[in-house]
């Protein structure tokens, strides 16, 4: 029994990281109607920036974390301005290919600077393991759960309660009408990319504190899984991304522990296939009915 609970909490941990990344996919999709396949690589960039700012620039932990988040947010804005904005009226396929190109570009630059050898990273979170009854919870798990929950609550409040948040909702529904109501669409899109990338940076930091190793392809797998989480929850839906991420993490963790480690990814993607067969718009996605 204890071990099931431990595995479940493990799943919550990785799931909440997926959820943070999935939020970036889903917000960008909602606003720019594109899948930003370079999003996973922001995680990797965040990991390297944190590593460099702590080991090379000798920054203390908190400023290094903030610095990492800011660098990633700016990178997100720059990528949108340089690569995606000129293609805003282009067919979706062109944007998709560009996003994949940006993804490879980021990986190749990391490869050039840091080589393909994994770098060992010592976790910046040193919290002791906690025992409640017979259950042991590693410190990093607790920190991850707290940080990701705070991020998700803050984001939800931001989207629903602030001026910029309501502008984001308006732009995601009808860009042209929003513009005619005085909303600066370009600024709103930039802000979305900045927030998405900042969340990816946080996810990246949590991720490397767990696995303590950095390489240029680090972002690929969590990126893809978070994308699956976003689709599972209903792409474009913010609560959907959170639910999808956590669900995916828990399923993955439980199937690793009780079914098969090798097959865990297959099970995760299998769940996606089944959900999409039953509900093609994802768990919390809205079915779009075209009125004729």
């Amino acid at each position, binding site marked *: 029994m204890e071990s099931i609970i431990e595995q479940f909490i493990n799943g919550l941990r990785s799931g909440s990281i997926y959820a943070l990344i999935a939020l970036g996919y889903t917000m960008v999709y909602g606003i720019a109607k594109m899948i930003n396949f370079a999003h996973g690589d922001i995680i990797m960039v965040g990991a390297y920036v944190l590593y460099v700012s702590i080991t090379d620039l000798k920054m203390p932990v908190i400023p290094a974390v903030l610095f990492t988040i800011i660098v990633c947010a700016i990178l997100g804005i720059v990528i949108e301005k340089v690569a995606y904005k000129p293609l805003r009226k282009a067919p979706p396929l062109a944007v998709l290919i560009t996003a994949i190109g940006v993804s490879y570009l980021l990986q190749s630059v990391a490869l050039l600077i840091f080589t393909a050898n994994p770098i060992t990273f010592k976790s910046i979170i040193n919290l002791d393991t906690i025992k409640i009854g017979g259950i042991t919870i590693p410190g990093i798990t607790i920190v991850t759960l707290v940080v990701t929950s705070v991020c998700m609550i803050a984001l939800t409040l931001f989207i629903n*309660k*602030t*001026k*910029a948040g*309501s*502008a984001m*909702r*308006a732009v995601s*529904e*009808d860009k*042209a*009408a*929003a*513009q*005619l*109501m*005085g*909303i*600066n*669409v370009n600024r709103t899109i930039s*802000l979305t990319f900045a927030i998405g990338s900042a969340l990816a940076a946080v996810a990246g930091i949590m991720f490397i504190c767990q696995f303590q190793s950095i390489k240029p392809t680090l972002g690929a797998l969590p990126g893809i899984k978070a994308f699956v989480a976003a689709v599972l929850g209903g792409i474009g839906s913010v609560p959907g991304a959170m639910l999808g991420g956590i669900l995916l993490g828990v399923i993955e963790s439980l199937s690793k522990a009780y079914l098969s480690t090798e097959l865990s990814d297959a099970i995760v993607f299998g769940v996606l296939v089944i959900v999409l067969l039953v509900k093609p718009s994802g768990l919390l996605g*809205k079915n779009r009915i075209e009125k004729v």
Partner: protein
Amino acid sequence: MNLLEVKNLGISFGGLRAVDNVNLLIEKGQLYGLIGPNGAGKTTVFNLLTGVYRPTDGTIKLDGVDLVGKSPSEICKSGIARTFQNIRLFKKMTVLDNVKTALHNQQGYSLAESFLHLGSYFKREKSMDEKALEILKVFDLDGQAHYLAGNLPYGKQRKLEIARGLATNPKLLLLDEPAAGMNPNETAELMDTIQLVRKRYGITILLIEHDMKLVSGICEKILVLNFGMELAAGTPEDVLNNPEVITAYLGE
């Protein structure tokens, strides 16, 4: 004094001259009608005025300020608001949020401010709510403030669009076929609302309409477009008795 001065306005899409040499002088406080057969270029004129399209020639001045080349959001801030022929509300947002989104971007505060002064954030949000409800009350929508906009009945959605336009605090309000799809009762009610809005907010209104009863009932001046060009302009009586206008509408 003229609020809106449009001179020699024109736009071509490739070889198609959609609007050609249109002049429009609207005085402050006037209720002006823009009519014409289907495809005459009425909505295109709206799109030119609001910056959705950039004119190939001509000038547009609002209160003496040149608007040509400004982005739609800038033009909205300089004082032109509009509604759409096919309703374009933010359907998944509440009625209140639709109006607040427009309010926010008029006299907004910056993102940094909303984080730095959380106290005044709540105060501002509260006054924003009150302002939005006040506007909704004019349109008899305050009872449905927390409905999703997409769930309102059709006539009310049309009204909400006008309310949302008003919330941007415009000098000039453009209404694109406000009575489209309404029954005679709803149209009559709408005419009253438009009159009321005009008196209460003292704004100038330019409207596109097919319902002749509505146009001749409330507009002080009318411009008739046909094939993108001016066909006639003047008071409703002059214009509607003009033989050329009758021909354009009914054929020979």
